[in-house]
Protein backbone atom coordinates (compact mmCIF):
# COMPACT_ATOMS: atom_id res chain seq x y z
CA UNK A 1 0.00 0.00 0.00
CA UNK A 2 1.54 3.31 -1.03
CA UNK A 3 1.88 6.19 1.39
CA UNK A 4 0.17 9.50 0.78
CA UNK A 5 1.80 12.92 0.91
CA UNK A 6 0.22 16.35 0.70
CA UNK A 7 2.24 18.94 -1.23
CA UNK A 8 1.29 22.59 -0.68
CA UNK A 9 2.83 25.31 -2.81
CA UNK A 10 1.47 28.21 -4.87
CA UNK A 11 3.94 27.43 -7.64
CA UNK A 12 2.68 24.77 -10.02
CA UNK A 13 6.26 23.96 -11.02
CA UNK A 14 7.23 23.33 -7.40
CA UNK A 15 4.19 21.11 -6.80
CA UNK A 16 5.14 19.15 -9.89
CA UNK A 17 8.82 18.81 -8.94
CA UNK A 18 8.03 17.69 -5.38
CA UNK A 19 5.32 15.31 -6.57
CA UNK A 20 7.69 13.81 -9.14
CA UNK A 21 10.29 13.21 -6.42
CA UNK A 22 7.75 11.72 -4.03
CA UNK A 23 6.51 9.29 -6.67
CA UNK A 24 10.06 7.97 -7.00
CA UNK A 25 9.82 6.98 -3.34
CA UNK A 26 6.45 5.32 -3.79
CA UNK A 27 4.27 8.13 -2.40
CA UNK A 28 0.95 9.08 -3.85
CA UNK A 29 0.98 12.89 -3.87
CA UNK A 30 -2.01 15.15 -3.25
CA UNK A 31 -1.54 18.84 -3.98
CA UNK A 32 -2.86 22.22 -2.85
CA UNK A 33 -2.10 25.71 -4.14
CA UNK A 34 -2.32 27.38 -0.73
CA UNK A 35 -2.98 26.54 2.91
CA UNK A 36 -6.75 26.80 2.69
CA UNK A 37 -6.98 24.63 -0.40
CA UNK A 38 -4.76 22.05 1.29
CA UNK A 39 -6.85 22.09 4.47
CA UNK A 40 -9.95 21.42 2.40
CA UNK A 41 -8.23 18.42 0.80
CA UNK A 42 -7.10 17.11 4.18
CA UNK A 43 -10.58 16.71 5.55
CA UNK A 44 -11.13 13.01 6.10
CA UNK A 45 -7.95 12.13 4.24
CA UNK A 46 -5.18 10.15 5.92
CA UNK A 47 -1.72 11.42 5.01
CA UNK A 48 1.73 10.17 5.98
CA UNK A 49 3.62 13.37 5.17
CA UNK A 50 2.98 17.04 4.47
CA UNK A 51 5.39 19.28 2.58
CA UNK A 52 4.43 22.94 2.54
CA UNK A 53 5.71 26.25 1.28
CA UNK A 54 5.75 29.29 3.59
CA UNK A 55 4.74 32.31 1.50
CA UNK A 56 1.44 31.64 -0.22
CA UNK A 57 -1.71 33.64 -0.95
CA UNK A 58 -4.99 33.09 0.97
CA UNK A 59 -3.35 31.10 3.78
CA UNK A 60 0.40 30.98 4.38
CA UNK A 61 2.42 27.99 5.52
CA UNK A 62 2.61 28.95 9.19
CA UNK A 63 -1.16 29.38 9.52
CA UNK A 64 -1.64 26.14 7.62
CA UNK A 65 0.64 24.19 9.98
CA UNK A 66 -1.12 25.63 13.04
CA UNK A 67 -4.50 24.65 11.57
CA UNK A 68 -3.26 21.14 10.80
CA UNK A 69 -1.79 20.66 14.27
CA UNK A 70 -5.08 21.79 15.79
CA UNK A 71 -6.74 18.72 14.32
CA UNK A 72 -6.17 15.67 16.50
CA UNK A 73 -5.78 13.20 13.64
CA UNK A 74 -2.86 15.18 12.18
CA UNK A 75 -1.01 16.06 15.37
CA UNK A 76 1.84 13.65 14.69
CA UNK A 77 2.04 13.76 10.88
CA UNK A 78 5.54 14.91 9.82
CA UNK A 79 5.38 18.37 8.27
CA UNK A 80 8.34 19.64 6.28
CA UNK A 81 8.53 23.31 5.41
CA UNK A 82 10.05 23.80 1.95
CA UNK A 83 10.69 27.48 1.34
CA UNK A 84 13.14 30.04 -0.01
CA UNK A 85 13.25 31.64 3.46
CA UNK A 86 16.29 30.79 5.55
CA UNK A 87 16.29 33.40 8.32
CA UNK A 88 16.62 32.03 11.86
CA UNK A 89 13.63 33.96 13.22
CA UNK A 90 11.35 32.65 10.48
CA UNK A 91 12.58 29.10 11.11
CA UNK A 92 11.84 29.55 14.80
CA UNK A 93 8.28 30.54 13.93
CA UNK A 94 7.96 27.38 11.84
CA UNK A 95 9.24 25.23 14.65
CA UNK A 96 6.87 26.88 17.13
CA UNK A 97 3.94 26.33 14.74
CA UNK A 98 4.67 22.62 14.66
CA UNK A 99 6.92 21.97 11.65
CA UNK A 100 9.06 18.85 11.80
CA UNK A 101 11.84 20.18 9.61
CA UNK A 102 12.94 23.06 7.40
CA UNK A 103 14.30 22.74 3.88
CA UNK A 104 15.53 25.73 1.92
CA UNK A 105 14.74 25.83 -1.80
CA UNK A 106 15.91 24.72 -4.21
CA UNK A 107 15.78 21.14 -2.98
CA UNK A 108 17.92 18.31 -4.23
CA UNK A 109 15.62 15.30 -4.87
CA UNK A 110 18.04 12.79 -3.37
CA UNK A 111 18.45 14.88 -0.20
CA UNK A 112 14.70 15.38 0.09
CA UNK A 113 14.14 11.63 -0.05
CA UNK A 114 16.79 11.08 2.64
CA UNK A 115 15.01 13.57 4.91
CA UNK A 116 11.66 11.93 4.23
CA UNK A 117 13.22 8.57 5.12
CA UNK A 118 14.15 10.01 8.50
CA UNK A 119 10.80 11.61 9.39
CA UNK A 120 8.26 9.17 7.93
CA UNK A 121 7.95 5.95 9.96
CA UNK A 122 8.64 2.78 8.01
CA UNK A 123 5.45 0.81 7.45
Amino acid sequence: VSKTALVVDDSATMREMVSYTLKQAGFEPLTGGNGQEALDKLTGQAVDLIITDLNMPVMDGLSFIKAVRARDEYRFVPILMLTTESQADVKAQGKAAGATGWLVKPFNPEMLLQVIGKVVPKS
Partner: protein
Amino acid sequence: MEIMPEHDLSTSTTSQDDAHIASLARTLSADPAMLERLQSCRETVHETLHDQFRVVTSDLEQLRGILSDAASKLSGAISVMNASTSELNATVRHLQETPELPALVRLTEIAEGMTSTTGMTVQSLQFEDMATQLLQHVSRRLAILESFSKDVAVIHPTPDHTLPYLTQTDLDMLEATVARYRQQLDSASHKAVQQQSLDSGDIELF
Protein backbone atom coordinates in the same frame (compact mmCIF):
# COMPACT_ATOMS: atom_id res chain seq x y z
CA MET B 1 4.46 81.83 6.82
CA GLU B 2 4.97 81.03 3.14
CA ILE B 3 7.88 80.42 0.83
CA MET B 4 8.00 83.02 -1.90
CA PRO B 5 7.46 81.38 -5.26
CA GLU B 6 10.10 83.40 -7.12
CA HIS B 7 13.00 81.50 -5.57
CA ASP B 8 14.61 78.69 -7.57
CA LEU B 9 16.24 75.87 -5.61
CA SER B 10 16.47 73.52 -8.54
CA THR B 11 20.21 74.06 -8.78
CA SER B 12 20.81 73.63 -5.06
CA THR B 13 23.08 70.82 -4.02
CA THR B 14 22.80 68.56 -1.03
CA SER B 15 25.97 70.09 0.42
CA GLN B 16 24.42 73.46 1.17
CA ASP B 17 25.01 74.34 4.76
CA ASP B 18 22.77 76.31 7.10
CA ALA B 19 24.51 79.63 6.50
CA HIS B 20 24.19 79.33 2.77
CA ILE B 21 20.49 78.52 2.99
CA ALA B 22 19.93 81.40 5.39
CA SER B 23 21.77 83.78 3.10
CA LEU B 24 19.83 82.55 0.09
CA ALA B 25 16.58 82.98 1.97
CA ARG B 26 17.38 86.54 3.02
CA THR B 27 18.24 87.45 -0.55
CA LEU B 28 14.98 86.05 -1.78
CA SER B 29 12.78 87.25 1.06
CA ALA B 30 11.88 83.70 2.16
CA ASP B 31 11.74 82.15 5.61
CA PRO B 32 15.09 80.37 6.13
CA ALA B 33 13.62 77.76 8.47
CA MET B 34 11.02 76.73 5.90
CA LEU B 35 13.58 76.75 3.12
CA GLU B 36 15.80 74.53 5.17
CA ARG B 37 12.96 72.11 5.87
CA LEU B 38 12.00 72.02 2.21
CA GLN B 39 15.59 71.44 1.20
CA SER B 40 15.89 68.68 3.78
CA CYS B 41 12.72 67.09 2.42
CA ARG B 42 14.06 67.19 -1.10
CA GLU B 43 17.32 65.61 -0.01
CA THR B 44 15.44 62.84 1.82
CA VAL B 45 13.29 62.18 -1.24
CA HIS B 46 16.30 62.05 -3.56
CA GLU B 47 18.21 59.84 -1.13
CA THR B 48 15.23 57.50 -0.74
CA LEU B 49 14.73 57.21 -4.48
CA HIS B 50 18.44 56.60 -5.01
CA ASP B 51 18.55 53.88 -2.32
CA GLN B 52 15.41 52.18 -3.57
CA PHE B 53 16.53 52.10 -7.19
CA ARG B 54 19.83 50.61 -6.03
CA VAL B 55 17.91 47.86 -4.17
CA VAL B 56 15.72 47.16 -7.21
CA THR B 57 18.78 47.01 -9.46
CA SER B 58 20.42 44.58 -7.04
CA ASP B 59 17.28 42.38 -6.97
CA LEU B 60 17.19 42.29 -10.76
CA GLU B 61 20.89 41.40 -10.84
CA GLN B 62 20.18 38.53 -8.42
CA LEU B 63 17.36 37.40 -10.68
CA ARG B 64 19.65 37.52 -13.69
CA GLY B 65 22.14 35.32 -11.82
CA ILE B 66 19.49 32.74 -10.90
CA LEU B 67 18.13 32.60 -14.46
CA SER B 68 21.63 32.29 -15.87
CA ASP B 69 22.43 29.48 -13.41
CA ALA B 70 19.20 27.68 -14.31
CA ALA B 71 19.83 27.99 -18.04
CA SER B 72 23.38 26.73 -17.63
CA LYS B 73 22.38 23.73 -15.47
CA LEU B 74 19.44 22.79 -17.68
CA SER B 75 21.55 23.11 -20.80
CA GLY B 76 24.22 20.90 -19.20
CA ALA B 77 21.56 18.37 -18.19
CA ILE B 78 20.27 18.16 -21.75
CA SER B 79 23.79 17.53 -23.07
CA VAL B 80 24.39 14.78 -20.51
CA MET B 81 21.02 13.17 -21.23
CA ASN B 82 21.69 13.27 -24.98
CA ALA B 83 25.08 11.63 -24.55
CA SER B 84 23.65 9.05 -22.14
CA THR B 85 20.82 8.19 -24.51
CA SER B 86 23.25 7.70 -27.41
CA GLU B 87 25.50 5.48 -25.32
CA LEU B 88 22.49 3.59 -23.97
CA ASN B 89 21.28 2.83 -27.48
CA ALA B 90 24.75 1.74 -28.62
CA THR B 91 25.17 -0.52 -25.58
CA VAL B 92 21.77 -2.11 -26.11
CA ARG B 93 22.62 -2.78 -29.76
CA HIS B 94 25.93 -4.31 -28.69
CA LEU B 95 24.17 -6.50 -26.10
CA GLN B 96 21.70 -7.71 -28.66
CA GLU B 97 24.63 -8.95 -30.76
CA THR B 98 26.95 -10.25 -28.01
CA PRO B 99 25.49 -10.43 -24.50
CA GLU B 100 28.29 -9.85 -21.96
CA LEU B 101 28.68 -8.71 -18.34
CA PRO B 102 30.70 -5.44 -18.86
CA ALA B 103 27.98 -4.11 -21.16
CA LEU B 104 25.32 -4.89 -18.55
CA VAL B 105 27.37 -3.11 -15.89
CA ARG B 106 27.71 -0.13 -18.19
CA LEU B 107 23.95 -0.09 -18.71
CA THR B 108 23.46 0.17 -14.96
CA GLU B 109 25.96 3.03 -14.75
CA ILE B 110 24.21 4.91 -17.53
CA ALA B 111 20.83 4.48 -15.82
CA GLU B 112 22.29 5.83 -12.56
CA GLY B 113 23.79 8.78 -14.43
CA MET B 114 20.45 9.56 -16.00
CA THR B 115 18.73 9.49 -12.59
CA SER B 116 21.32 11.91 -11.25
CA THR B 117 20.87 14.23 -14.23
CA THR B 118 17.11 14.14 -13.79
CA GLY B 119 17.68 15.21 -10.19
CA MET B 120 19.73 18.18 -11.39
CA THR B 121 16.90 19.09 -13.77
CA VAL B 122 14.33 18.95 -10.94
CA GLN B 123 16.57 21.21 -8.86
CA SER B 124 17.14 23.70 -11.69
CA LEU B 125 13.48 23.95 -12.68
CA GLN B 126 12.79 25.45 -9.26
CA PHE B 127 14.20 28.72 -10.62
CA GLU B 128 10.66 29.63 -11.71
CA ASP B 129 9.41 29.81 -8.13
CA MET B 130 12.39 31.81 -6.92
CA ALA B 131 12.28 34.17 -9.88
CA THR B 132 8.55 34.76 -9.33
CA GLN B 133 9.10 35.64 -5.67
CA LEU B 134 11.93 38.02 -6.54
CA LEU B 135 9.80 39.75 -9.16
CA GLN B 136 6.93 40.08 -6.68
CA HIS B 137 9.35 41.74 -4.27
CA VAL B 138 10.51 44.16 -6.97
CA SER B 139 6.91 44.90 -8.03
CA ARG B 140 5.83 45.70 -4.47
CA ARG B 141 8.72 48.13 -4.07
CA LEU B 142 8.09 49.79 -7.44
CA ALA B 143 4.38 50.22 -6.62
CA ILE B 144 5.27 52.05 -3.39
CA LEU B 145 7.84 54.16 -5.24
CA GLU B 146 5.34 55.11 -7.94
CA SER B 147 2.88 56.29 -5.32
CA PHE B 148 5.67 58.01 -3.36
CA SER B 149 6.84 59.89 -6.41
CA LYS B 150 3.29 61.19 -7.07
CA ASP B 151 2.66 62.21 -3.48
CA VAL B 152 5.85 64.25 -3.18
CA ALA B 153 5.56 65.85 -6.61
CA VAL B 154 5.02 69.18 -4.85
CA ILE B 155 8.76 69.45 -4.21
CA HIS B 156 9.55 69.67 -7.89
CA PRO B 157 10.18 73.13 -9.31
CA THR B 158 7.30 74.69 -11.20
CA PRO B 159 7.47 74.90 -15.02
CA ASP B 160 8.98 78.39 -14.75
CA HIS B 161 11.75 76.95 -12.55
CA THR B 162 10.62 78.55 -9.32
CA LEU B 163 9.95 76.88 -5.99
CA PRO B 164 6.47 75.55 -5.42
CA TYR B 165 4.19 77.80 -3.41
CA LEU B 166 4.03 76.10 0.00
CA THR B 167 2.35 77.02 3.24
CA GLN B 168 3.48 75.82 6.65
CA THR B 169 0.70 73.20 6.58
CA ASP B 170 1.83 71.99 3.14
CA LEU B 171 5.34 71.56 4.47
CA ASP B 172 4.14 69.70 7.57
CA MET B 173 2.14 67.34 5.36
CA LEU B 174 5.07 66.86 3.00
CA GLU B 175 7.39 65.90 5.84
CA ALA B 176 4.80 63.50 7.25
CA THR B 177 4.31 61.95 3.80
CA VAL B 178 8.04 61.43 3.28
CA ALA B 179 8.37 59.86 6.75
CA ARG B 180 5.39 57.57 6.13
CA TYR B 181 6.78 56.29 2.82
CA ARG B 182 10.24 55.70 4.25
CA GLN B 183 8.65 53.56 6.95
CA GLN B 184 6.59 51.72 4.33
CA LEU B 185 9.69 51.07 2.21
CA ASP B 186 11.61 49.85 5.25
CA SER B 187 8.87 47.38 6.07
CA ALA B 188 8.93 46.16 2.45
CA SER B 189 12.63 45.36 2.75
CA HIS B 190 12.15 41.74 3.79
CA LYS B 191 13.03 39.61 0.81
CA ALA B 192 12.06 35.94 0.88
CA VAL B 193 14.75 34.90 -1.59
CA GLN B 194 18.36 35.35 -0.52
CA GLN B 195 19.84 32.64 -2.74
CA GLN B 196 22.24 33.74 -5.44
CA SER B 197 22.26 30.45 -7.34
CA LEU B 198 20.38 27.17 -7.66
CA ASP B 199 22.65 25.17 -5.39
CA SER B 200 20.54 23.13 -2.99
CA GLY B 201 19.56 24.85 0.25
CA ASP B 202 20.12 23.96 3.90
CA ILE B 203 18.15 21.29 5.72
CA GLU B 204 17.29 21.35 9.41
CA LEU B 205 15.22 18.85 11.34
CA PHE B 206 13.67 20.14 14.57
